[in-house]
């Protein structure tokens, strides 16, 4: 029996007991207890009726350098990170979506340079346009985009490069991130030089 089914049986049991109390017991206080049991049972049953989603800690993507041979391998890891640890899909969509709260990332790899994407991920305050309208002079605006390389998301440099590879690949662009840039986690990573966008 699954956990949900077990809880439903318990919930029904509590409701049944409450109904039995109201039907057969006259003592006022006990009747009120029975009434409370029915209310709580109904609440539990309603909560069990909605989608049951637990929030699991993000899975860590293992960077086995020996297994990363091509840029596509990196993009495959980047895709996983995009939808899990990176939490990118929490706000961004790939293609138009009603539920997306932030810019659609479809084709972003062909619109922005790799350096600009890297800067957007690690220094989100650098260039943000009000309401994402890419017109007029850029204004400094409190960025809603979090620092991806810092906690609570805290992607490593390898992971950020993989996400960039994924964004480029899904935009149909050649992947400019090379597997040779992937470093062992223990090694110190040099920051990618950032070229300011025009």
């Amino acid at each position: 029996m699954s956990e949900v089914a077990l809880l439903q049986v318990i919930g029904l049991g509590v409701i049944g007991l409450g109904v039995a109390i109201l039907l057969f017991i006259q003592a006022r206080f006990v009747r009120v207890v029975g009434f409370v049991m029915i209310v709580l049972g109904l609440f539990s049953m309603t909560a069990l009726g909605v989608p049951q989603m637990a929030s699991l800690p993000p899975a860590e993507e293992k960077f086995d350098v020996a297994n990363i041979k091509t840029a596509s391998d990196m993009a495959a890891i980047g895709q996983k990170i995009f939808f899990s640890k990176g939490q990118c899909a929490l706000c961004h969509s790939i293609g138009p979506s009603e539920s997306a709260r932030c810019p659609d990332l479809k084709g972003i790899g062909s619109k922005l340079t790799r350096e600009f994407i890297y800067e957007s991920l690690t220094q989100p305050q650098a260039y943000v346009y009000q309401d994402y309208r890419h017109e007029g002079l850029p204004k400094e605006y409190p960025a809603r985009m979090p620092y991806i390389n810092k906690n609570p998301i805290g992607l490593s440099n390898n992971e950020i490069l993989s996400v960039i590879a994924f964004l480029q690949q899904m935009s149909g662009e050649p992947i400019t991130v090379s597997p040779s840039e992937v470093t062992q986690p223990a090694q110190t990573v040099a920051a990618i030089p950032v070229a300011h966008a025009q």
Partner: protein
Amino acid sequence: MLNHGEHPRRIASTGRGQGSLLAGLLVFLALAGAPLLGLAQDAPGQTAGVAYRDIPAVGSRNIVWVIAQLHLLLAGFVLGVPIFAWICEIVGWKTGEKRYDKLAKEFTKLLTSSYATTALFGGILLFMLIGFYPKLMAYLGDIFFPSFVVYCILFLLETATLYLYWYGWDAMQEGSKKTLHLFLGFLLNVFAFFIMIVPNSWATFQASPVVIAEGSDLARAWAATWNPTWWPVNIHRLIANVVLGGYICGAYAGIRYLSAKTAEEREHYDWMGYVGNFIGVFGLLPLPFAGYWLMREIYQYNQQMGITLMGGFLSWLFILQAMLIGVLFLGSNYYFWMGITHRIPGSEVKYRRPIMAMLVILLLCLGVWMTPHSLVASLEEARKMGGTHHPLLGVFGVMSAKMTVANLMILVTFMSFIMYWRAGKEETAGWAKVAKSIMGGVLGVAAIVVIVLGVWGYFVPAIVRINYFSVAQVLIVLFVMLTITPLTALLLRSAKTTTEMVWGRMPPRAGYALVLNAVMVILLMTLMGYARSSSRVHWHIYGVMRDSSQYAYSPALGYAAALMSLNTFLFCMLVAFIFWVATMGEKAKAGGGGGKG
């Protein structure tokens, strides 16, 4: 999991008073002994660097969940009741109606026993936290040590003031002594407020930490205390405590009303139920605004956290919240309406139509509020709809619609109260007609503007809706309350009572409505506690200290709701026990008196 609660209940049924006592003792011994089991999990010598301890089968998180929830609910009750009692005492003092003073005293009596129980659960919680989460507690202790000292001092002051307030009640009834007693009540609430906001800083720090590496201990503690969600939570909890105090008073009155044997008892508890419901509603009306402010601050602090709450895995929680708040609004209004039709003879016909209209509006609003953004649908159903968003209902699933209906429900509830207030009275002032037209106009225009802003909200960027439209809706509703309340009070000052209110004529379902309202408020507090805690996802301290225990995940709503129900049930039983103990002497006195008579 529910066995945890079933066991004491079964034992309790074996005897009356002794059974409850035995069950309570067993629960206490089981909980007090739990950390020993946890310690038994660590071999000697391994405990120095241990980050977590656990209790097999039950789980350390479940234990902490139950104890923390009970402590928080008791604390809410203990902090809400003095506000409630103090307001009643002032009303009694100002109007000269002794029954208000009696009510205030009756509830203050409960404070002494519930205060001790709250402290007891606080102590158990502290031991549990130190035992189960030593690393986290060491970190928090390091940052917040200065506020621990402040907390202890506040407790001493609160305890001393409570003793003076309670034991000095009869001695300080006349003249300047009464003023001193009222001042003590004020002090009691001031200390209680600070006792609430100090631990709030520890909890809110976990969600929105501010960590500074430099500076003195005091500077670090102060920076951590004044974190982005501290004041929104302080205000939200303060109002929520008033609501909890009011509705629990109502539930107590409801139960006593149901079991009342004499007409005098029925009258007294009917009136007490009215006061409790009134104070509960009084607090309930501004509560959504405080909640809105809190959510806004969360979004400002970290948008991901906001999205996790409102659009992520917790989004369905807000449908449950809408259901609970909706039932609470309906329950409160229903009680008002029953009051009009049963306590004021001859008013059934007069008020039937407006009551029906208000009921329809409330149900429609509740329907919109409860509409989820994306529906639970099979693949085939989703294909037919063209996605998970229903072509028609999907429109109601967004914030613009929900803010609008929440404001409309508040307006309707406010009007229910005004209707009850004016029932059975005839305004004699010459300007009454003009005043009533102004009130009607203000209400009508406000409702229209709230709806227009709600609809317009669909066509503007989110930032405009959140920053301007939603705020405007809130301000409009507040304006209505702040205009109509004093105007009505002024109007009724010279009004003639056409039909005297008759207490003690409410049907039994009124008592159950009061109990239902209290259960809804308690459930809401447990639900939103889970939301606040889960919004940190797999972090003990968001972005600073990660939860690396086996309980780093947030459980699904069904499991969480079962625990919430258990906690609500245990809290209700605890409060019932406290009420029973506190009124034991009174009953014995009444029984003795009856025997003599």
